[in-house]
C-alpha cells in the first residue's frame, strides 16, 4: 500500500508537468490547427531562463520565495515573447498555405531553437540550485517532498487561472470565437492576429513554468530536454482530444500515471511503450480523444 501511494505521488507529479506542456499544444492546435513542434523548445528555454536568473538572485542573497517567483515570472514572460516572435517569423506567413508547410516550418523551428540553445548555453547540463527544494513530509515510508507539493499546487493554480481566462474573460471569448471561425470573428471586430499571438504567448508561458519546475525537481536542464517531454505532452494532448483544454490536462495526468505505474509494476524499460499503447488504444476506440468532440467543432 505504501508502495502504491508513493508511486501515485510520483505519477501525479510527472503528470502535472506533462499536463502543463500539453496545454500549449492543445491551445495552439485549437486556434490555428497547427501542431507546434517547437513547443518543447519553449519548455527548455524556460528552464534555462529560470536557472540563469535564479542563480543570479541567489548569489545576491535573495530569499527563496523571491528567487522562485521572480524567475518564474521572468521565464514565463521571456517565453511568451519568444513564442510571439516565432509565430510571426515561422507560422504567420504560412497561415494560408497547406498544413504540411506549416508543420515543416514548425519542425525546422524546433531544430533551430534547440541548436540555438546548444550554441549559446553549451552542451553541458546546467545545474539548478537544488538547495531551495530539499525536504518534505514523510508518512511511514511514503515521501512527499516540498518540491512535489510545489509542482502539483502550481500546476493546479495555473490550470484554474487558464480556465478562468478562457471561459470568463473577453479575451477568452475572442480566443474561442477565433478558434471556431477566424473570418466571421474578424467580421464582428475581433483582431484575429492579436488573439493568435496571445494564444501562443500563453501556451509558451505555461511550458516555461513547466521547464522551471522540471529543472528544480530533477536538478538540471540541458539544451535537448524539450524533445522527449514535448513528444509525451503532444501524445497527452491527442489522448485528451486535441484542441480541448480539460482533455489536455486529463491526458497529461494519464500519460504520467501510466508511465510511473508501468515502470513501478512492470518494467522500467517498457514504460514508454505502455504510455503509447494506451494512446493508440484510446484513439482506436475513440478517435477524437477522451474529451474530444467532432473534429470541426474544436475549441480553445
Amino acid at each position: 500500500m505504501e508502495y502504491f501511494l508513493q508511486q501515485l505521488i510520483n505519477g501525479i507529479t510527472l503528470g502535472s508537468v506533462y499536463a502543463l506542456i500539453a496545454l500549449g499544444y492543445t491551445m495552439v492546435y485549437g486556434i490555428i490547427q497547427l501542431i507546434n513542434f517547437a513547443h518543447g523548445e519553449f519548455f527548455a528555454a524556460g528552464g534555462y531562463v529560470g536557472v540563469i536568473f535564479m542563480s543570479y538572485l541567489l548569489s545576491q542573497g535573495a530569499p527563496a520565495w523571491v528567487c522562485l517567483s521572480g524567475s518564474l515570472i521572468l521565464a514565463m514572460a521571456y517565453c511568451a515573447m519568444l513564442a510571439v516572435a516565432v509565430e510571426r517569423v515561422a507560422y504567420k506567413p504560412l497561415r494560408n498555405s497547406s498544413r504540411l508547410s506549416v508543420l515543416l516550418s514548425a519542425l525546422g523551428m524546433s531544430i533551430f531553437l534547440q541548436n540555438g540553445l546548444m550554441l549559446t548555453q553549451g552542451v553541458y547540463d546546467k545545474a539548478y540550485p537544488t538547495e531551495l527544494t530539499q525536504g518534505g513530509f514523510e508518512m511511514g515510508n511514503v515521501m512527499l517532498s516540498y518540491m512535489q507539493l510545489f509542482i502539483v499546487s502550481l500546476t493546479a493554480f495555473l490550470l484554474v487561472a487558464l480556465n478562468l481566462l478562457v471561459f470568463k474573460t473577453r479575451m477568452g471569448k475572442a480566443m474561442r470565437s477565433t478558434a471556431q471561425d477566424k473570418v466571421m470573428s474578424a467580421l464582428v471586430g475581433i483582431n484575429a492576429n492579436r488573439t493568435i499571438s496571445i494564444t501562443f504567448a500563453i501556451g509558451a508561458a505555461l511550458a516555461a513554468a513547466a521547464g522551471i519546475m522540471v529543472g528544480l525537481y530533477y536538478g538540471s536542464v540541458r539544451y535537448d530536454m524539450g524533445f522527449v517531454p514535448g513528444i509525451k505532452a503532444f501524445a497527452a494532448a491527442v489522448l485528451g482530444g486535441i484542441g480541448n483544454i480539460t482533455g489536455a490536462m486529463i491526458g497529461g495526468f494519464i500519460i504520467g500515471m501510466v508511465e510511473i505505474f508501468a515502470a513501478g509494476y512492470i518494467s522500467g524499460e517498457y514504460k514508454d511503450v505502455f504510455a503509447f499503447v494506451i494512446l493508440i488504444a484510446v484513439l482506436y476506440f475513440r478517435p477524437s480523444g477522451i474529451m474530444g468532440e467532432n473534429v470541426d467543432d474544436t475549441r480553445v
Partner: protein
Amino acid sequence: MKRLFMTVLLAAAVIMLGSGMAFAKTLKIGTMGPLTGPYAADGVDIKNGVLTAVEVMKANGGIPGFDDIEVLPQDTACEPRQAVATANKLINEGVNGVVGSYCSSATLPASEVLDEESIIMITPASTAEKVTTRGLPYMFRMCGRNDDQSKTAVKFMTDELKAKTIYLVDDKTAYSQGLADGVEKMAAEAGIKVLGHEHVNQGDKDFSAILTKVKTEKPDVFYMSMQNSATGALMLIQAKRMGIKAAIIGQDAVYHPQLMEIAKNAAENVYLTFGYTDKEAPAYKEFDAKYTPLHGNIGAYSGYAYDSAMAYMMAVKAAGSTDPAKVKAELMKLDYNGATKHVKFQANGDSGSDYVIFKVKDGKFTTYWNPATGLY
C-alpha cells in the same frame, strides 16, 4: 580545344597541390568522440585533452621533420553509423593517427575501418572488452577494461562494505548494461543476493518509479550504471530525496566534475570505480597547468586523451616517420609515467587497468579504497 586547355590546367593545379603538400609536412591527428548529444561533455573533454597534448608537444620543440601538428576533431554522436562515416572522413583527410572514440559502440565499427587503412587508433575511453580482444593490429587502449572494473566493484562490496544484497540499474547502452551484467554475475558468484536489475531509457529524467522500488527492497548496495554523469547526478538527487539508505556505487562514466556540480550534496559519499591517477606526479601537474587555463575543469577522459595523443606523438618522434608499422613498434616500446598512469602497452593493445574506489567527499573525488591494499 577548350576542353584540352581545361584538362591541362586542372592537371597543373593537382600537381602543384601535391608538391605543395610535400614541402610542408604536417602531422595530422584525428579525434573522435560525441561533440553533440547527451555525451557531448565527454567528447569535448577528449578533444581538449588531445589539443592540450599537441600544445605541450609544440612547446617542447615539436616533432623533428614535421612543420606542424594538426588536430582534426570529428563528432561521432556515439552512433555506430556516424562513427564509421567520420572514420572514412578522417581517412580522406589523410590523418596519421586517431584518438577516440568515447562510446564502445562507436569505437568498435570505426576501428575496423581505420585498421583496414593501417591507421593507429588509441581509445582513451572505450572500456568494452571487445575493443582489444578482436586482435586488430593497430587498436590501442589507454583506459581500463569493464571486466576489471566490475571485479573491483564487487571486491569492494564483499571485502569493505560486507554487502549481502544488491540492486542494479543501468541505462541499456552497450557499456552500462555490459558493466551491470558483469557486476550482477560476479556479485552472485561472491554470494551477494541480487534483489533486482532494472533498466531505464536514455534521456529519461524521472527515475522516481524505479527508485521507489529500490527503496522498498532495501538493498545494501545500489549499483548505478549510467553512461552519462549528468543523468547519474539526476538519479542521485532523486535517490537522496527519496531517502534511499543503500551505499551507492557508480562507475567511470559518471566520474566527471559535472556530477557534483549538478547533484551537489546528493553526490556526497557515493562510491565510484575509476582508474587511479597520481595527481601529485610531475607529468599530471604539467598536464593540469596547460589544460586548466585553456579548457577549464579537467573531465573524466581529458587525461587519458592527453596521454593517448602524447604516446602517439612520442612514438612518431621516435620512429621519425608516420609509417604505421614503425610507429606501432615504437608504441610497444614506450615505458614511461604518463599524466594519468604508467604507459606500457601489452601485446593486445591494452595498457592495463588500475581501477580503485573513489568516494565523493566535500564535493571532490577522493581515492578511498584500493583492491590490492585496502583503504587509503
